[in-house]
């Protein structure tokens, strides 16, 4: 088939409803008799619960139930959430229970759930529940947590160390022994969060008569939620259905199943009524999972020509209180250090520590921004020390396109060796430099400085493992209406899957894009699904739609050939039907074919066909496909206030073939905004006792419209050889490398003060400290 929709900037199917105020977000829905939940949450980072007294709360008019851990149904009561991603290097694991039993391990951990006739009353009652705590010392900073004698995040645990394991390529000792130069840096990547504008939420409806649990959730993976409910309640597959409608942003943490969801289901089972819980922003700051929070101490070895010989050091990753995603984050971070460069030797001691803070799980980039930041900062260090242009240092170290597929020598988080499938990294950087103001910037910088302005430019490169397995399925069906429906477990949160997947299907079936509906994230429509995370949907679900649509087209031709008594080779798919090529009258519509495919009551099925004009495919990628990007950022720093203004960002992005340029552009620009937040604004802070101190959008700043520069996005299209449509993931590439590029630009702007940027975000206070320190070293 010719590609009419694949590759076109088709306007999104999702938009009209959302623009008219007719979205269906969880809190927009109501069920008859529905109750509203609020949680009693831990006020302490670490404490024993001596008692929970809900007597007064239960008396409040409008309160229907208060459930503590002891009130949870069997078998959920004594279970913890499942570990999504086991790993042999995990030596100690802690998982959260649906409601805390006798110990709480972070401020915000749920202790009891209150259900009432309104959320207002539920919150009143939650405030009336008296919890008697015995506070315990808290483990707060991961660097302290791994020391002998540290306060334990989990009482009675042997230590706070979840994992201590080496990650290795080649012989670092030999590499460092022959190095012309060795440089050491310590980095701290601070904690940030997803901060989707729609907080988490769900409605759980337990039907006692049919013994079925129906859940509508704001999620990134309906099927994962279903499996978790099945696990916690020992239900059969037919007893749980999870549906995800519109989702107001996810960015990773809506992919996790949270203990609140189990408690809401328990509350529905206890009251036999639907129960809705919508997280409010105050809860969001103390209970939705977060990320980054890593301490790196690394050395880089280079030869006299700035060629990389080795990199070694230590990564201390703060897991927070629990580890629902196993080692995914530190592992991705560690393997993302290499980026687009030839690194002959690498040794990293990976230490994962439990602390009494919110659990860390993937947030846009998922460890990749940290790994990228470390390598790119080291590249800049080499450039500065050896007085070589930053782009040139990178140029000397790139993996060349002729080296593809390139085996890095590590095992990725997907269990497969990190093997870059395709990409042209030198070209990506060359294009970015050519299209940005990188060349010739020094003249602009000098001119600005003469006017008292401090401007800087920075660049960075990243390679990003995308399209992770194991699969995402799609059923493509031509229904008896003659229209096409696609069912998939992919669970979008704004990425426009209903549009892009319809584009893929429409081309193969010769129908208009408008005649394809895409049903996402309803466990009642497709048995297996993984959900949307790790920039994986275009690769997995896109390929499955492609394969299934081809199969449906073949099936349609087969049936038509029987009905028209023509060879399938003489048939073509055209305008919602199948016709004999060159004979417009000789035609069967999809509607006729779909009717025929269903069969006639009481008659034998013709041929050896399975019923229905439909096909299901589960595309199973053999490994991740690696996207890449180069970012060039410019900043202006106000040396009086310390304010950093990002004045321009250019991204050269390669995510293979692009299904919808409009959507990919939006993903990249939006990703850049997240990275700008990480680079200069977003930092979640905790007191020494583990109390969160950034708990509103006045304390924790998200980038606003006036903080964002215009972003220029250019594309290099290196098709992936690993899937039939040649695509790579696009959801995170905007974020990953821009953080390092901005850090590089700030360092450049502050070069008169000899400042070095070794953390993110870089706050105005930090900028002023760096300037003051620079002035003290060498008075300007």
């Amino acid at each position, binding site marked *: 088939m010719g590609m009419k929709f694949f590759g076109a900037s088709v306007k999104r199917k*999702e938009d009209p409803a959302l623009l008219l105020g007719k979205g269906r*977000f969880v809190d*927009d829905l109501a069920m008859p008799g529905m109750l509203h939940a609020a949680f009693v949450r831990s006020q302490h980072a670490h404490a024993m619960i001596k008692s929970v007294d809900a007597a007064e709360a239960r008396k409040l008019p409008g309160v229907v139930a208060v459930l503590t851990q002891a009130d949870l149904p069997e078998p959920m009561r004594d279970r913890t959430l499942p570990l999504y991603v086991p790993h042999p290097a995990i030596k100690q694991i802690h998982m959260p229970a649906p409601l805390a039993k006798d110990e709480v391990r972070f401020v915000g951990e749920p202790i009891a759930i209150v259900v009432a006739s309104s959320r*207002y009353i539920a919150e009143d009652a939650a405030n009336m529940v008296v919890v008697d705590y015995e506070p315990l010392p808290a483990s707060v900073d991961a660097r302290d947590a791994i020391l002998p004698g540290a306060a334990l995040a989990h009482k009675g645990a042997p230590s706070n160390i979840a994992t201590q394991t080496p990650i290795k390529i080649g012989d670092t000792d030999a590499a460092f022994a022959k190095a012309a130069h060795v440089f050491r840096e310590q980095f701290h990547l601070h904690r940030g969060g997803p901060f989707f504008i729609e907080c988490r939420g769900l409605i759980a409806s337990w039907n006692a008569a049919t013994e079925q649990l129906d859940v509508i959730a704001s999620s990134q993976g309906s099927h994962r939620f279903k499996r978790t409910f099945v696990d916690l309640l020992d239900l059969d597959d037919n007893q749980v259905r999870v549906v995800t409608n519109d989702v*107001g*942003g996810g960015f990773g943490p809506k992919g996790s199943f949270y203990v609140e969801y189990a408690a809401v289901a328990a509350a529905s089972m206890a009251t036999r009524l639907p129960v809705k819980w919508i997280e409010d*922003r105050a809860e969001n700051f103390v209970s939705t999972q977060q990320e980054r929070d890593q301490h790196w101490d690394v050395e880089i070895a280079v030869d006299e020509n700035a060629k990389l010989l080795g990199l070694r050091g230590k990564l201390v990753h703060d897991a927070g209180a629990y580890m629902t995603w196993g080692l995914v984050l530190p592992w991705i971070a560690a393997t993302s250090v290499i980026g687009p460069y030839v690194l002959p030797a690498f040794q990293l001691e990976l230490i994962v520590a439990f602390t009494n803070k919110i659990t860390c799980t993937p947030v846009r980039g998922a460890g990749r921004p940290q790994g990228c930041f470390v390598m790119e900062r080291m590249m800049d260090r080499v450039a500065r020390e050896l007085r070589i242009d930053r782009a040139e240092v990178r140029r000397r170290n790139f993996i060349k396109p002729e080296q593809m597929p390139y085996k890095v020598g590590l095992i990725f988080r997907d269990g497969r060796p990190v093997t870059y499938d395709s990409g042209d990294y030198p070209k990506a950087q060359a294009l970015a430099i050519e299209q940005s103001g990188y060349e010739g910037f020094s003249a602009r910088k000098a001119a600005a400085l003469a006017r008292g302005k401090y401007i800087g430019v920075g660049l960075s490169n990243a390679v990003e493992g995308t399209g992770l397995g194991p699969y995402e399925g799609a059923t493509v069906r031509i229904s008896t209406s003659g229209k096409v429906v696609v069912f998939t477990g992919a669970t979008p949160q704004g990425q426009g899957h209903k549009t892009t997947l319809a584009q893929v299907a429409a081309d193969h079936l010769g129908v208009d894009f408008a005649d394809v509906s895409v049903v996402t994230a309803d466990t009642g429509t497709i048995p297996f699904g993984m959900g949307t995370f790790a920039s994986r949907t275009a690769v997995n679900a896109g390929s499955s739609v492609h394969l299934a649509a081809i199969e449906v087209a073949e099936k349609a031709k087969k049936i038509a050939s029987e009905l028209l008594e023509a060879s399938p080779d003489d048939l073509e798919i055209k305008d919602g039907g199948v016709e004999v090529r060159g004979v417009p009258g000789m035609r069967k519509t999809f509607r006729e074919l779909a009717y025929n495919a269903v069969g006639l009551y009481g008659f034998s099925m013709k041929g050896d066909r399975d019923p229905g004009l439909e096909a299901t495919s589960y595309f199973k990628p053999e490994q991740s496909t690696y996207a890449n990007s180069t970012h060039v950022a410019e900043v202006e720093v106000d040396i009086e206030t310390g304010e950093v203004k990002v004045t321009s960002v250019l991204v050269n992005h390669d995510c293979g073939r692009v299904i919808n340029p409009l959507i990919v552009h939006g993903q990249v620009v*939006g990703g850049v905004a997240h990275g700008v937040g990480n680079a200069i604004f977003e930092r979640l802070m905790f007191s020494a006792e583990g109390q969160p101190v950034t708990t509103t959008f*006045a304390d924790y700043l998200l980038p606003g419209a*006036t903080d964002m520069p215009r972003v220029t996005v250019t594309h290099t299209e290196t098709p992936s050889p690993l899937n039939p449509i040649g695509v790579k993931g696009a959801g995170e590439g905007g974020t990953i490398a821009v953080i390092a590029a901005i850090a590089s630009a700030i360092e450049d702007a502050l070069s008169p003060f000899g400042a070095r940027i070794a953390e993110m975000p870089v706050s105005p206070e930090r900028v002023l400290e760096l300037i003051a320190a620079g002035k003290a070293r060498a008075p300007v």
Partner: protein
Amino acid sequence: MSESSSEIRDIELTVNVAKRRGKAEPRLLLVDFLRHELGLTGTHVGCEHGVCGACTVMFNGHSARACLLFAAQANGADIVTVEGLANPDGSLNVLQEAFREHHGLQCGFCTPGMLITLTEHLRDNPDTTEEEMRVALSGNLCRCTGYEAIVEAGLDAARQLRDAGKERA
């Protein structure tokens, strides 16, 4: 906290040109009243502390945060929500269509607030610039788009509205 009937107020107001009535206890937020009492769920709740702007509605001709107002304060008020923006035939208006054209929304959750803010801004500043528009939008958070496409949509709508005004004149 009590539901005693003496505290329940009758609220009468105009929403999207229609007279509406509902009941509200004194502490009921306007946004909850609109969403759950009147069933107008297009207006969203994002932060409940007046920062994110997802709950922005037009209140007596000016944009306002419905999470920072009580329903009781809206008694007698004239309110426009996102549900009131479409053309009379129900189709997308110029601004809404521009959002679609420029991919000014991804998840769509902040969009109702963005639309209301820009509706006011374009009404009061028909010759707006990108910089003015960004300042106008600085009270509305979007986590998906990076704002660029929203600004482009707003500028495009401004252009179209100016052109339409010239034609009429």
